[in-house]
């Protein structure tokens, strides 16, 4: 016969309230979205702008400066955008590799016992990471296009390699269509050398027997393509760039835009990666280094075998976001005229007037690329994570 506690009214119940709030917020978001979309549709109708993605199959009608695969102005917008994406991917992949290399070296150099080396690395990091990357890109681009000589007096660091304000020209082998065989052999050699060193490491871990994997790997990488080259008759013909009027013909070329973009992005991102590497190394307990030194390992071995594997676990998450930043920053190519995805997308938007679809495609592609990179790095992170026994 206890007295009935006053019942909580339903709107004061926590669960009911949560539902209420969520319905309200979702309703607001939907309402705002609907308002924007209806405005947009009205505006598009008023301006006679078509909607939908039909424009992708239409003829693009503009030429692209750099095309990793063949492209003709008569091809479709979809193909133009694909070329843009490929250009973005090329810059991003090269940039990631180079900036990781430079960043790691500079990061280790900042911790060097050598006073001078540490100072130079510090100056590099402090200057480059405190200046906007776009300014650096414009600077490199201006430097390449203005300070380098005309093709007529191009620098020639190596026989057949020309550096001028039209970019870098270099000879390509012209071996009667069989160049790809040597290239394939080289790639195969690298893959085999990698597998060999892996097998040797596993065998050493299991049995303690060492194997000269370095020497054999180098032989695989160098001698095996050489053998193929001899087999196809040791051709020596080169398609070398030749000065013809005001520009070069023949050979292969890298445009000034590409060089400026890659240089700027790489040096800028490397300054951040250097800081990440440095803090990762500092995060490894000093006892680890001391213990490794006490075991008689050399400084380089300590770094390679003891410190780096542990530092990597700290380094990888922020490194991932730097890779993502580099990929996203490659969109700044539009400012110096390298035909990346944004640049091609911008031209497409200007020509078709279909801004919404254009921006949506750009955003969707970058989202997918970003998600792909983080998925890959998460996988790698899991792989290197500490296995607790």
């Amino acid at each position, binding site marked *: 016969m206890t007295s009935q506690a006053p019942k909580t009214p339903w709107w004061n119940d926590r669960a009911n309230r949560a539902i209420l709030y*969520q319905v309200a917020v979702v309703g607001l978001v939907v309402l705002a979205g609907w308002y924007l979309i209806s*405005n947009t549709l009205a*505006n598009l109708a008023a301006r006679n702008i078509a909607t939908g993605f039909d424009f992708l199959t239409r003829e693009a009608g503009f030429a692209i400066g750099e095309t990793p695969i063949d492209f003709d102005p008569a091809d479709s917008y979809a193909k133009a955008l694909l070329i843009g994406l490929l250009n973005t991917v090329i810059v991003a992949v090269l940039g990631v590799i180079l900036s990781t290399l430079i960043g790691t070296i500079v990061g280790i150099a900042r911790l060097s016992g*050598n006073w001078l080396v540490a100072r130079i690395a510090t100056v590099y990091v402090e200057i480059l990471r*405190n200046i906007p990357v776009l300014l650096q890109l414009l600077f490199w681009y201006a430097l390449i296009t203005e300070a380098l000589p005309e093709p007529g007096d191009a620098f020639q660091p190596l026989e057949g390699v020309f550096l001028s304000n039209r970019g870098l020209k270099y000879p390509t082998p012209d071996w009667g269509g069989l160049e790809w065989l040597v290239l394939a052999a080289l790639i195969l050699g690298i893959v085999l050398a990698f597998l060999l060193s892996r097998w040797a490491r596993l065998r050493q871990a299991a049995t303690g027997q060492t194997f000269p994997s370095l020497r054999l790997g180098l032989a695989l990488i160098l001698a095996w393509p050489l053998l193929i080259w001899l087999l196809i008759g040791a051709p020596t013909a080169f398609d070398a760039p030749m000065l013809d009027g005001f520009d070069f013909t023949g050979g292969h070329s890298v445009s000034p835009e590409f060089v400026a973009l890659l240089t700027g992005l790489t040096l800028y991102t490397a300054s951040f990666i250097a800081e990440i590497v440095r803090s990762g190394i500092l995060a490894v307990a000093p006892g680890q280094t001391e213990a490794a030194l006490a075991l008689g390992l050399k400084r380089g071995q300590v770094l390679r075998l003891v410190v780096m594997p542990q530092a990597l676990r700290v380094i990888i998450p922020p490194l991932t976001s730097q890779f993502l930043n580099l990929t996203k920053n490659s969109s700044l190519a539009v400012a110096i005229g390298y035909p990346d995805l944004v640049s091609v997308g911008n031209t497409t938007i200007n020509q078709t007037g279909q801004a919404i679809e254009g921006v949506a495609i*750009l955003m969707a592609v970058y989202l997918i690329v970003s998600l792909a990179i983080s998925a890959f790095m998460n996988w790698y992170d899991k792989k290197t994570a500490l296995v607790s026994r």
Partner: protein
Amino acid sequence: MSDNASHAPKTASEIASHVEEPSQAELHTHRRNAFAALGWARENLFSSIPNTILTILSVTLLVWAVPPLLDWMLLKATFLSEDPAACREAGGACWSFVTVKHRFILFGLYPYDEHWRPLLAMGLFIAALAVSCDSRFWNKRILYVWALALPLCGLLMWGGWFGLTFVPNDKWGGLPLTLILATLGIVLAFPLSVLLALGRRSDMPAIRAICVGYIETVRGVPLVSVLFMASIMFPLFLPEGVTIDKLLRAQLGIMLFTAAYLAEAVRGGLQALPKGQYEAADALGLSYWQKTRLIILPQALRLVIPPIVNQFISCFKDTSLVIIIGLYDLLTTAKTALADPSWRAFYVESYVFAALIYFLFCFFMSRYSQYLERRLNAGLKR
């Protein structure tokens, strides 16, 4: 070791002042310090063969790079001449480019005679930023400071009152514009980012989904595409007949972009709070908003001040991207100043000048954020 090394120059000057009659004891200290300096060099530069090679390489690099650089920057440079031909003759850096063009680079298209106004507004802005760095102002007072500074800056920049001529904001440019875009970007993004961070940690799935969706989408796309969206698509979003200013569009774009990154920083602070704080607040019978306002945010936001400063630095650098949608920020003015055919060749000077300004701001802010981190960590370690 380095302690001894720092003694060496002091003793050298002592020796110089007593050069007439060096006593035996002084000679002795001199010699000892010289040995110490040698010892320092041996320890830090020549400790092993690879180390010596590195030192020699670095010295070679410095000898190769520094003298020509100094030569170009100072010895052969032209500073005051207003004639580009004089620069070409001297062959070094043409700082007279900066002398001639600095007003344009700093203030853009703002009417020349009124440049004192953006200068004063900038001073106010920087003063407000400096005050915000003082931890005594990390409470309601910071709101008053900005509530006073921002309208005052607006009044100065726009004018149209008290005898000041009206300057429409499409004439604004240079450093004031960069500062406005960056600061307002952070200030306006802050409330939104707190809401997003709270939403991402909410128990309600629909709200969490919306916040996660927003944050991850924005973080996955480049700022350029957000600015494109702001500049091309915002006008389409509005009802017919309503137009939206170009500067405002860029500002909104930067704000929406920054909010997503800031939200992640705030979330870090929320997660760093011990769970007991949440539980204790619940046990006191506080409602969600009371708990958040009185217990959680005051502690969490203190923790995230260093990441917020870092976000401000990257926002400051990122505002340079508005060049792509045609606003006259510091980078655009530095680039546009080169359009003058007689000064075209001096792009390095122009970019170095702009870079120096960006560098000074970013460098001091990053030092400040490092100092804060050390201070906050010192508090936690005790």
